[in-house]
């Protein structure tokens, strides 16, 4: 009898232990940890972006974790390298979901990569914060329940930049130098829309491939177009090199560039040629805002290498901040649904880097504004207040 009772007790213990987690545990969440994942170009020609963005996220998470985490949970980031190649991004995301069991994907970099993994992530019902991709790929897309985006829309950015340069600077003809993928193509589309809205013309569209390194021919094609303004949708290396080549052959149109190039590093890479360039920005740039500079100082203390690329490092922080705010608001009982409900309460919220974030039950496009800056003597000077554009989804 005594043995039978002992056996029954053991059985109850096993059942209790076995049943407990199955009822309450969320994928990627334990009482002490939340696992999140990201896929970034940590090697290859786009590593210029991926390495500091990932480094910024990791350093900021370390600050958060060292301060006790959020509701007692540390946040662990699993970062995988995709070399900016969509097939590798697909493999990485599957690994993050199926092997690492992440609670959320944060900040996957690259429009083409995000497009490639979009259906899988939605199908898996994984929370996805800030794919670093043109935001218009979500417009009209069903299944955005677990998606939250504060990244800029290149189409709207290109349109607003073109409208600004056409209207306030009187430029009538535009040429576009763009990366031949979704990033550049969306920027080109925006420029075309901006030109159409202002009666200006796009007289040349000159693409390049990410692996290209010699832009002398591209610069000649741009000069051949005779455009008043050249809009650049490129990575920093290509952007700097084409501007240098244009200067070399004596072609000096009004230069206009995406927010991805509003990087202080451009002054060193392009030299004198990076003067009087009109750019978009959607968060305060390093050197222009006390809070941003404090964050930069803190993360570079943890990872000194981030000082070499401060713009992308604080960019990394801006991409993960909304996720952390969602965790705070969701409270100690963290599930996907409680997280979504918490994110939907965010209204005009300012992080340390990202500003003016608003989500809601029908809104997943959290930041819908840019402002215009001009590069002057090694600094970016703000020219306009925030310019709003309509949320796309």
């Amino acid at each position, binding site marked *: 009898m005594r043995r039978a009772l002992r056996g029954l007790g053991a059985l109850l213990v096993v059942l209790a232990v076995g049943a407990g987690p199955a009822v309450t545990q969320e994928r990627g969440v334990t009482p002490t940890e939340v696992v999140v994942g990201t896929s970034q170009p940590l*090697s290859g020609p786009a590593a210029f972006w991926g390495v500091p963005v990932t480094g910024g996220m990791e350093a900021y998470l370390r600050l958060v974790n060292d301060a006790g985490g959020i509701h007692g949970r540390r946040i662990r980031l699993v970062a995988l390298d995709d070399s900016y190649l969509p097939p590798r991004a697909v493999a990485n995301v599957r690994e993050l979901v199926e092997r690492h069991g992440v609670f959320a994907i944060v900040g996957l970099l690259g429009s083409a990569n995000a497009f490639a993994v979009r259906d899988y992530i939605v199908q898996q019902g994984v929370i996805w914060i800030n794919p670093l991709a043109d935001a218009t790929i979500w417009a009209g897309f069903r299944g955005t329940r677990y998606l939250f985006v504060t990244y800029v829309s290149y189409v709207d950015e290109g349109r607003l930049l073109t409208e600004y340069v056409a209207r306030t600077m009187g430029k009538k003809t535009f040429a576009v130098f763009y990366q031949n993928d979704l990033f550049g193509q969306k920027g080109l589309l925006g420029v075309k829309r901006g030109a159409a809205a202002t009666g200006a013309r796009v007289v040349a569209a000159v693409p390049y*491939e990410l692996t290209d390194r010699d832009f002398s*021919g591209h610069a000649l094609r741009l000069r*051949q177009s005779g455009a008043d303004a050249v809009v650049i949708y490129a990575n920093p290396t290509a952007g700097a090199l084409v501007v240098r080549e244009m200067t070399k052959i004596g072609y000096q149109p009004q230069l206009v560039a995406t927010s991805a190039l509003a990087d202080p590093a451009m002054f060193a890479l392009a030299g004198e040629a990076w003067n009087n360039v009109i750019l978009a920005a959607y968060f305060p740039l390093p050197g222009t805002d006390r809070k941003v500079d404090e964050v930069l100082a803190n993360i570079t203390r943890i990872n000194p290498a981030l000082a070499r690329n401060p713009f992308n490092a604080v960019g990394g922080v801006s991409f993960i901040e909304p996720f952390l705010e969602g965790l705070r608001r969701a409270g100690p009982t963290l599930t996907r649904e409680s997280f979504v409900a918490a994110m939907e309460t965010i209204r005009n919220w300012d992080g340390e880097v990202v500003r003016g974030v608003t989500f809601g039950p029908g809104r997943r496009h959290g930041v819908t504004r840019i402002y215009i800056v001009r590069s002057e003597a090694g600094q970016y000077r703000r020219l306009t207040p925030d310019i709003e554009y309509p949320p796309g989804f």
Partner: protein
Amino acid sequence: MDLFAQYVVVGLASGSLYALVALGIVLLYRTSRVLNFAHGDLATFATFVAFTLLSAGRPFAVAALAAVVTAAALGAGLYYGILRPARESTLLGQVVITLGCALVLNGLATRLWGADTKVFPFPLSDTRVYRLGQVVVSQLSAVTAAASLLVMGALYLLVQRTRWGLAVRAVSQNMAAAQVLGIPARTLLAATWALSAALGAAAGLLLAPALLLDPFLMLDPFLKGFAAAVLGGMDSPPGAVAGGLVLGVVEALFGGYVSVRFRTTLAFGIIVAVLVLRPQGLLGREFRRRA
């Protein structure tokens, strides 16, 4: 006409550097029959060594010499340390080994110097230009093109006019016979690896000031150099030079007058066309190893 001339000048400037890369590839290929996929990454690594020394305030000549010596040591080390112990492997196996070495070197460079792009200090200006009518050429382009041609000339003399060059050619024709004649074939092969890598380093040093420096500096020039080598003939150093210059000019004119979108693809199209129509290349001879 001015525009045409400008495209030709731009093409020749690029082509002279493609030729330098192609020479390194060809020199090694004709001696060992190994296509060295680590050629570009060896060059990048060596260029980073020069960058480190320049950043520490060393004179350019010292930094450049250190880069060339580093590349030569890495090239010889690759042969002695990895390829020679793996001599039982097939040629394809050896090519795959070089591919692995390329990945290791690239990862190491990223680890040591970071993935961010750097301005490579150079005694000449990339923005100071010379004007010939409407045609513009930068001081840097003019001097790098001249330096490339100088290096190519020196290499030609070394291979064609010295006993060492004769021995290298003998080894490439028939290693066993060369060894019987008392030629130290292994040492010569190692020296060829070193020389090829040193040529790559020279290309890296001349490219980095104009193209900026990061761990992927040589990705595009290596592919173009490979295309130039195939175009000119994989066993022909003069062919490599001709191939580089032709590729540079054709590429520039194609981008200017046909399609800038498919400019990058052109090099690969040329590889395919040459392999189908004239596998030995423009100046190459069909290779037959003597029995």
